[in-house]
């Protein structure tokens, strides 16, 4: 069906309202409300609800329609009109819906989570501001403004990471985050300007709309593409600019859930999607490699972390790596799909982590324990204490693993399968990528299982510290659990497809395969669709068991066994030990190594970059003081000395004067006449 023009206008108008309402909330909160007013939370939540509803409606109208593109002239420079406008196509409306859909529960959650913070209002102001920026980012139609919102998003995350700005680490983290993002931004800016200097337009529709197919492999285009990639890398924490994300966990957990799991970090993927036609095969390959490597590395690192949020952060990085890789291998639709699914379950994981940490710190204060509430080493046995959290968490974990019947299954398999397709017949070197991805997903399974078991199964390790403690914990009020439940439901397959096993007939994927023309999947003769999932889940189960064996019943000796192991056949625990002794150790060592690498080499690299900057600045300062300014002083001194020299003739003895005078006269005369 064809949308009437007037209808388009209303759509656009509504979209603008949807974007602007959080801004309104932000301004209200920032300027007019007192420091701690419950009202502020409601204002923000309602506005985001509004934009959620609107975007839902827009989505329903716009999905699978010809894109709506409304624009007006912003200002004129020279003969060039800079337009401002909105572009609604599948991608943008999807993101619109997604962002608001994630933001809404997070808002609700935050109400409870941030209770009692002395800058409550400010928090919600920031949050709304972020939502505004994010929503604006997804619907805006020209690259210049895209960049603008891109930066605003970064700014908002800067504010939120450093929300507790009295904490030194938080401040360090937000500085780091902003600057590393700035690096990417500069890349993006250069990219945009390069595009402009080639095509003389900022208009996304004009540039990338319509069928252009794969871009040619010109050097300039490659550079441009890499610049854009650079922007994406920084935003969605890809190697080597990913180190800011783990640190960013200093912010409130709800923030981490919204920004650093679901939305902002996805902006990078979104950007790649937005300008996809720009990339030529070279760039795409680079993208794929980057993504794959990041995914693998992050996953391995996640294996050995003990800080709950850090684990999640690394897992996020790894999942984003998946998506990037997907983009690279041409699994455009699947990676966007994975973006969507991942948004839900990762957000969910963070929220539940938030609850758990909340409880732990509660315990900590209660018993005056000297523990890090985020460390999973002190958790355990929370299953009985907080069942809701446990269940939701499990759902999310399964989704992350890509267990059948979850949304994750669909999206992840999509990416994997297409990567195999992509690599197929390209020579062995290419097939490293799908295999790496495969391994990664197994590792993912392992670390998430580890997390679940450590946190929920077994019994509380607090007892090791102080036996007297009777750890009691409970779900928070409904405002905490409700969002989690909602998200958990969203993490299951029905939301996306009624066939839990075939990603191709997921409506979302379809939407993109229909609209976007760059799904370059040449279906290979023997179907990966069959065995990739099989392997994944088969091995996955093993791994889960392994993890269970390792972490859930670590304290078990062979002569007094209980529980599960006892029921299992007798000598299998050799295998256990075998696993335990060899593979796990190995993996763990790799993980440790990589973490070390991450901390010292990569981060160290970034820091050294900073140091180099500082050193340069010192040098230039020195140069400024002693060379340039010194030159100035030198000149003045020369002048002065000359003056002094001349003054030297003024001896006060009249005959010396006469002598000098006569002598000079003679010299002048002689020079004048005889030369």
């Amino acid at each position, binding site marked *: 069906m064809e949308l009437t023009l007037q209808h388009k206008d209303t759509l656009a108008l509504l979209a603008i309202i949807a974007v602007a309402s959080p801004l309104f909330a932000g301004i209200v909160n920032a300027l007019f409300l007192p420091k701690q007013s419950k009202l502020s939370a409601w204002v923000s939540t309602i506005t985001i609800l509004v934009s959620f509803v609107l975007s839902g409606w827009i989505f329903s109208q716009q999905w699978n329609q010809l894109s709506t593109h409304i624009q007006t002239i912003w200002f004129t420079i020279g003969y060039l009109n800079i337009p401002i406008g909105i572009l609604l196509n599948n991608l943008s409306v999807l993101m619109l819906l997604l962002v608001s859909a994630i933001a809404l529960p997070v808002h609700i959650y935050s109400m409870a989570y941030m209770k009692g913070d002395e800058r409550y209002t400010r928090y919600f102001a920031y949050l709304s501001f972020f939502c505004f920026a994010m929503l604006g980012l997804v619907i805006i139609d020209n690259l210049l403004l895209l960049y603008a919102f891109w930066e605003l998003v970064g700014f908002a995350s800067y504010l939120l990471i450093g929300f507790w700005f009295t904490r030194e680490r938080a401040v360090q983290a937000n500085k780091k985050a902003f600057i590393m993002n700035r690096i990417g931004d500069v890349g993006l800016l250069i990219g945009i300007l390069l595009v402009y200097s080639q095509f003389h337009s900022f208009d996304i529709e004009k540039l990338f709309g319509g069928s252009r197919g794969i871009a040619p492999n010109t050097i300039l285009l490659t550079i441009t593409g890499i610049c854009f990639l650079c922007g994406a890398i920084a935003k969605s924490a890809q190697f080597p600019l990913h180190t800011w994300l783990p640190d960013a966990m200093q912010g409130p957990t709800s923030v981490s859930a919204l920004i650093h799991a679901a939305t902002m970090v996805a902006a990078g993927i979104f950007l790649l999607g937005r300008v996809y036609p720009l990339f030529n095969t070279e760039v795409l390959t680079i993208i794929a490699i980057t993504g794959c490597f990041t995914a693998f590395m992050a996953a391995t690192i996640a294996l050995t972390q003990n800080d709950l949020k850090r684990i999640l952060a690394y897992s996020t990085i790894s999942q984003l790596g998946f998506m990037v890789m997907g983009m690279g291998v041409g699994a455009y639709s699947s990676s966007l799909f994975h973006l969507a699914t991942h948004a839900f379950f990762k957000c969910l994981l963070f929220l539940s982590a938030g609850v758990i940490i909340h409880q732990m710190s509660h315990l900590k204060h209660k018993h005056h324990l000297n523990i890090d509430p985020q460390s999973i080493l002190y958790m355990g046995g929370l299953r009985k204490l907080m069942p809701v959290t446990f269940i939701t968490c499990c759902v999310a974990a399964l989704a992350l693993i890509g267990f059948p019947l979850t949304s994750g299954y669909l999206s992840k398999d999509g990416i994997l399968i297409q990567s195999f397709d992509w690599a197929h017949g390209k020579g062995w070197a290419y097939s490293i990528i799908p295999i790496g991805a495969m391994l990664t997903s197994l590792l993912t399974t392992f670390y998430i299982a580890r997390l679940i078991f450590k946190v929920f199964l077994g019994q509380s390790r607090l007892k090791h510290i102080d036996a007297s403690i009777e750890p009691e914990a409970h779900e928070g009020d409904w405002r905490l659990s409700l969002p989690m439940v909602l998200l958990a439901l969203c993490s299951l397959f029905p939301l996306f497809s009624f066939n839990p096993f075939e990603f191709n007939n997921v409506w979302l994927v379809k939407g993109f395969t229909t609209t976007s023309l760059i799904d370059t999947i040449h279906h290979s003769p023997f179907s990966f669709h069959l065995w990739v999932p099989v392997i994944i889940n088969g091995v996955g189960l093993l791994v889960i068991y392994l993890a269970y064996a390792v972490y859930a019943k670590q304290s078990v000796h062979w002569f007094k066994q209980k529980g599960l192991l006892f029921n299992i056949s007798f000598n299998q625990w050799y295998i256990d030990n075998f696993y335990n002794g060899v593979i796990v150790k190995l993996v763990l060592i790799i993980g440790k190594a990589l973490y070390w690498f991450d901390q010292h080499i990569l981060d160290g690299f970034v820091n050294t970059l900073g140091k180099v900057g500082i050193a340069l600045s010192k040098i230039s300062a020195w140069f400024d003081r002693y060379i340039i300014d010194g030159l100035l002083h030198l000149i003045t001194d020369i002048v002065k000395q000359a003056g002094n020299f001349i003054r030297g003739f003024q001896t006060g003895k009249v005959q010396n004067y006469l002598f000098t005078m006569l*002598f000079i006269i003679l010299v002048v*005369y002689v020079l004048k006449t005889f030369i």
Partner: protein
Amino acid sequence: MNIDQVLFCVMGFVALASALLVAISNNLVRSLFMFFVTLFALAGLYVFALADFVAVTQVVIYVGGVLVLMLFAFMLSNKEVLNNLQQSNSKFISVGKLPAILVAVLFAIVLVNAILKAEPDALQWVKASAQSNNVIKPTDNTINNIGINLMTRYLLPFEIISVLLMMTLIGAAHLARREEHKL
């Protein structure tokens, strides 16, 4: 070589020699007297240049005026000046005086060079006046001509000089006048 050339040479020699002595002697009195001699010699030379009136004026004003004035000054600036002049460097050539000698010699070279280059006797106007016998003969008396010129052609300087002398008188008197402060 007739007599007046001889005389001229003698006069010139005397003038230069005495001037040199003035330069050499550190004794103020002696140098003054040597200067006295120089002036007389110069007057003689003026006579040779057929400027007898100038010669007379020279004698009157310089010898009668300037020199006496200097003597006065010397008397007024009393003894110990003399002493510290005495023990000051007595040699004609000394390191302190080398610059002076240098400049003097340089000037000598430059001047002599210039004079010889100019060939004064071959100057055009000199020749011309020689032809148009605009030259002063030893026989004719120039004084009344000078007088007339002073009253006509050189009237202005003449008058100005009078004012100048008057001013000088006032000024010198003012300076020399000894008064005790009455403040």
